[in-house]
């Protein structure tokens, strides 16, 4: 196993790089897709008939997207999208890296849409009413009050998606994407050392997922901020000092 590592560590590092790249970008873009869909789905029904019809059509399209991408294996989606593109372009395939990023992003987006929606509806109705009572619009309420809380609450699920993505990008080997699993297969064809290679790769995957898991838990703790606050003394502060204290606290 150590021989393989010392001989092929550059290839393995490249595989790790691609795996992490596609997992990270796929998770981030997927989250953005999820937030957009989540916000769209919680827009109150418009008053005019025409707008309502448009909104309903949008709803159906989004439901179809979510259900189709959750209901089929990503490996199959990768093949359909990659070869479908070639079919439509006279046999010219899309760049493999770009394909991989697109596939993982829209696949993750389908899961994130549901996670974000769950996060939004779990926020107390009072938070919406408190904002609406000040005269904030739905969008202002969402972006300033509801989403920050919803995102904090769904962070564990988002971390989970990230970890799933690190592992599941391995299916992209079917379109020749040089992620970690693809590298492993390559090493095996050159060395015939099947077991040690895959054991090594398993260890590398675990280090990646465990490391990310620890990192994100740290981020969660950071986001929660300090447990204490400082009560300002009775000294008469000017507005600026109050603001400074509020920022530091």
């Amino acid at each position, binding site marked *: 196993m150590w021989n393989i590592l010392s001989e092929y560590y550059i290839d393995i590092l490249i595989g790790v790089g691609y795996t992490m790249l596609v997992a990270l970008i796929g998770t981030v873009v997927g989250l953005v897709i999820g937030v957009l869909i989540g916000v769209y789905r919680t827009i109150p029904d418009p008053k005019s008939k025409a707008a309502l019809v448009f909104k309903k059509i949008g709803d159906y399209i989004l439901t179809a997207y979510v259900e189709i991408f959750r209901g089929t294996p990503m490996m199959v989606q990768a093949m359909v999208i990659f070869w479908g593109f070639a079919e439509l372009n006279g046999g010219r395939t899309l760049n493999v890296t770009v394909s991989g990023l697109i596939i993982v992003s829209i696949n993750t987006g389908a899961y994130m849409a549901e996670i974000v929606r769950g996060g939004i509806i779990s926020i107390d109705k009072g938070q919406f009413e408190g904002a609406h009572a000040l005269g*904030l619009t739905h969008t202002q309420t969402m972006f300033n009050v509801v989403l920050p809380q919803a995102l*904090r609450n769904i962070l564990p699920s988002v971390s989970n998606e990230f970890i799933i993505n690190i592992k599941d990008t391995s299916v992209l080997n079917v379109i020749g994407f040089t992620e970690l699993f693809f590298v492993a297969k390559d090493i095996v064809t050159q060395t015939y050392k099947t077991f040690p290679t895959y054991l090594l790769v398993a260890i590398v995957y675990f280090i990646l997922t465990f490391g990310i898991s620890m990192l994100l838990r740290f981020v969660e703790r950071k986001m929660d901020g300090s447990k204490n606050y400082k009560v300002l003394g009775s000294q008469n502060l000017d507005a600026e000092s109050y603001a400074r204290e509020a920022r530091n606290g």
Partner: protein
Amino acid sequence: MVENSTSNIQNANLTADEIGQPIVKIEHLGKSFGDHIVLKDIDFSVCKGDVTCVIGPSGSGKSTLLRCINLFEKPTVGRILFHGEDVTAARKPNLLRQKVGMVFQSFNLFNNLNVLHNCTLGPRKVFKLSKADAEQLAIKHLKTVGMDAFVNAKPRQLSGGQKQRVAIARALCMNPEVLLFDEPTSALDPEMVGEVLAAMKTLAENGLTMIVVTHEMSFAREVANHVVFMDGGVIVEEGTPQQIFENPQEERTKLFLSRN
């Protein structure tokens, strides 16, 4: 900014016409949820500087009435006039809500923001105030309710009474023409009720127009210039605190007051 109005509780006996047009006027308002009729033919108006207390048994429709006034609920029949303009079916209810504030039983402070930013969010997003101006405004109103020392606390770190005082300051930062209170002390431990009522009394003395749904009869008696008694979705009786508390005309009012 609290209005420096002279028309406050001392002018208890002035009618709407003597002061001018009412700020809020409700005409034949009715509201049902499905088959369930919650409000029937409600008429009443509020003028500048009025402190109106709405009292009545649980389920009589007090909250629903208040929520109709800031368009949280859509009335089934009737009209809501704001400075004489019909706002019942307003396309943009948020424009009305910028002028009609609300304080909730459950505070509804923004859990993701500290005390200062709870107060600055509205002025910054709605009135596009600069950060510095909004903070100055917030601190001024936090001082009014005695919460300026807590600018960097998160809502979860405050007691109920403190939260409610911050919620009041947050509403004041929008400089509302009318401030609605829906049982602002009902979720509080008894020892915290006083601090919130004291803050509200200060606002009334400064001439703020308020509609207060409350079970605190002593507050209604002392601070209100107009008391509305509701039961079963209708206004049974209304008048000055003296009329309602000392000399109620209706049996239902007498019964309710004898129990509270």
